[in-house]
């Protein structure tokens, strides 16, 4: 394929993910299609069939076997890519826990989509948050460029000898997976220089070297040892991410930190967001500033390991913080809210108010007006979270639907 002179081309989030895998020179892709992820595996299958990618593309019978195949192939020392979404992630959940415990590196993309019931196809983050405690490293992308870059960086991080854990790159379904925007596609040589062939840091399956993985251990002590090692390895990924980001910036000119600070330095009101709607948050920050509200935004790129020190440093001394979760743990509220509050715990420069806000469920838009409502809630000493971004217009619309649905 020809790359145009500026090395930029219009790519959907899904195509950007596929390009990331292509530039990483993946050798094995176990795949199972699911809306809104299908375009990723469709693109890769064409590249394998046409000979652009050398290796094996396999259509699996489910996400459960797909993740197992991904882990098993990685255990043989090949570079593996896979992708899923929503119900597929849930169906493969057992395998995700299993293969992260094997401590084998690969990269997977999750294209976020809300979970049933009710059934939806559109984005929210309950699917990716369900994998929060699997032992995966999680990088969340706001733009199509971040997707491509995080897949490339993801291999470098996953394959680092002190990490050796799968990396999940997350993007929002539809609004990012199907949105095209200009993306810089690194040339293959630079990509190869940045990411040489996979050199496993551990013995790999070979006919001449029998081994057992996923051993059963009883009594709890041995189990605890391996779980602590898993925790140490995932924590180590923050340092490795930062080192990798410096190398990536040297080579490609784009520098990433676990957090992105947008107009944060003098901000009195901070929105904490992630993924594609952070773009809307940034726009709202600029508009609020025109209206005299000193707003800022903290975007979280890395959810696992959770960069708690960096979060605490970014939020210290801010008067008011709203954590906008595009997910819901019924009976509790936003899933990331307690993690951010815990990061601030015990600090004397803790914000006066940290409010939990829930919006963008099942693809519901977060409007710029909503951000002003959040500011009002932050200024109201009586307000308590979680605050749902659900307004009178939404209620009227629901009543119309209910007329059709109910006798």
């Amino acid at each position, binding site marked *: 394929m020809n790359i145009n002179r500026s090395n930029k081309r219009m790519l959907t989030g899904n195509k950007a993910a596929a390009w990331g895998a292509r530039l990483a020179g993946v050798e094995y892709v176990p795949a199972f299609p699911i809306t809104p992820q299908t375009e990723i595996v469709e693109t890769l299958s064409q590249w394998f069939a046409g000979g652009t990618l050398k290796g094996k593309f396999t259509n699996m019978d489910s996400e459960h076997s797909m993740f197992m195949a991904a882990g098993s192939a990685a255990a043989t020392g090949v570079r593996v890519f896979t992708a899923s979404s929503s119900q597929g992630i849930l169906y493969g959940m057992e395998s995700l826990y299993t293969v992260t*415990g*094997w*401590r084998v590196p690969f990269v997977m993309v999750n294209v976020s989509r809300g979970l049933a019931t009710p059934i939806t196809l559109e984005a929210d983050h309950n699917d990716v948050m369900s994998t929060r405690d699997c032992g995966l490293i999680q990088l969340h992308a706001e733009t199509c460029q971040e997707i491509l870059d995080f897949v490339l960086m993801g291999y470098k991080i996953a394959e680092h*000898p*002190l990490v*050796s854990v799968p990396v999940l790159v997350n993007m929002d379904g539809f609004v990012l997976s199907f949105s095209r925007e200009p993306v810089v596609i690194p040339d293959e040589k630079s990509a190869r220089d940045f990411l040489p062939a996979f050199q496993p*840091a*551990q*013995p790999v399956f070979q006919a001449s*070297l*029998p*081994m*057992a*993985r*996923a*051993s*059963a*251990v*009883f009594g709890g002590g041995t189990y605890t*040892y*391996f779980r*602590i*090692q*898993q925790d*140490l*390895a995932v924590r*180590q990924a923050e340092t490795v991410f930062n080192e990798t980001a410096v190398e990536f910036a040297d080579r490609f000119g784009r520098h990433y930190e676990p957090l992105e600070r947008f107009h944060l330095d003098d901000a009195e009101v901070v929105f904490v967001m992630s993924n594609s709607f952070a773009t809307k948050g940034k726009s709202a920050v600029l508009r609020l500033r025109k209206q005299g509200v000193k707003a800022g935004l903290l975007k979280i790129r890395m959810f696992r390991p959770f960069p708690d020190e960096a979060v605490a440093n970014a939020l210290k001394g801010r008067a008011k913080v709203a954590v906008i979760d595009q997910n819901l743990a019924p009976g509790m509220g936003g899933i990331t809210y307690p993690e951010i509050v815990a990061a601030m715990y015990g600090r004397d420069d803790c914000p006066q108010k940290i409010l939990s806000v829930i919006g963008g469920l099942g693809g519901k838009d977060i409007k710029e007006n909503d951000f002003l409502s959040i500011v009002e809630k932050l200024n109201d000493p009586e307000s308590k979270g979680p605050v749902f971004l659900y307004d009178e217009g939404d209620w009227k619309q629901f009543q119309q639907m209910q007329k059709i649905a109910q006798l």
Partner: protein
Amino acid sequence: MLRVRFHGRGGQGIKTASQVLGTAAFLSGFQAQDFPLYGAERRGAPIVAFTRIDKEPILERGPVAFPDLILVGDETLLEDSQAAPACGADALTTLLVNSTKAPNSLKDKLNLLTMPVTCGLTKLCLKHLNAGMILSTALAAAAARLTGLIPLNHLLEAVEIELAEFSPEQLQKNLDLVREVFELLNPVVFQEREEAGLFPSKLMALEQQEVRDAAPLITATGNMNLRKTGNWRIHRPEIDYEECNHCMICYARCPEGVIKEDAEGKPEIDYDHCKGCMICAQECPKHAIKTLWEMDYEHQSQ
């Protein structure tokens, strides 16, 4: 609190014994807790179960490390280092063994601090139940009697509750067995254990290890050999070499791969690992593999 530990083999009713005792204690007005410990084992494998009895609410969970009363249903387990039925026994512990041996011979052999109680429960089970390996009610009755806390009527009621799915005839046989065991034994005086003061554990912060040591990875081969499964046997296959024609069908059929060919081309059973499934005896075309009771074999060999 009185802490009771039962040892036996999968299929002998060890779990049920702990539950009959638990229910009997509960019916007698005590706080009670019973708990079996098993997972991937199968019939014949060593099993433990526990019953705790107290006047006060029981704030313990899990296995009993320092039992006041140990009941060993299967004496072939006594010298088994993995089952280790005497583990945690001290000067306050009473140990009952289902055996017809003299107590002092067992005391010396097992290095016990107290004189064990022996009782030939297998014979009584054979007499009442026509089955020598089902020890649930007999062991529960022995335990209940030794505690001195449980009257016979509550014990019998507990048996009725726990064996509610049995036929009336089978239940009656068990009740008769329980009565006989209960009357055969005398209560033991148990001393309350003094509570030691707490001292902090030496917690440590693990350092990250290289991934080959940080993942549950086994690269050493042949270490299954270290797991001796020979103690799972209830039945023991024995090859009659007078009859054996070295056809090696037993070798081919053994699901555990524990029959090998010796220097003379004869099949040889590895008793450290044979689980006693007896498939070899079934498959032998010359019926040259005998089925022995492991317990009888132990007696003979001594």
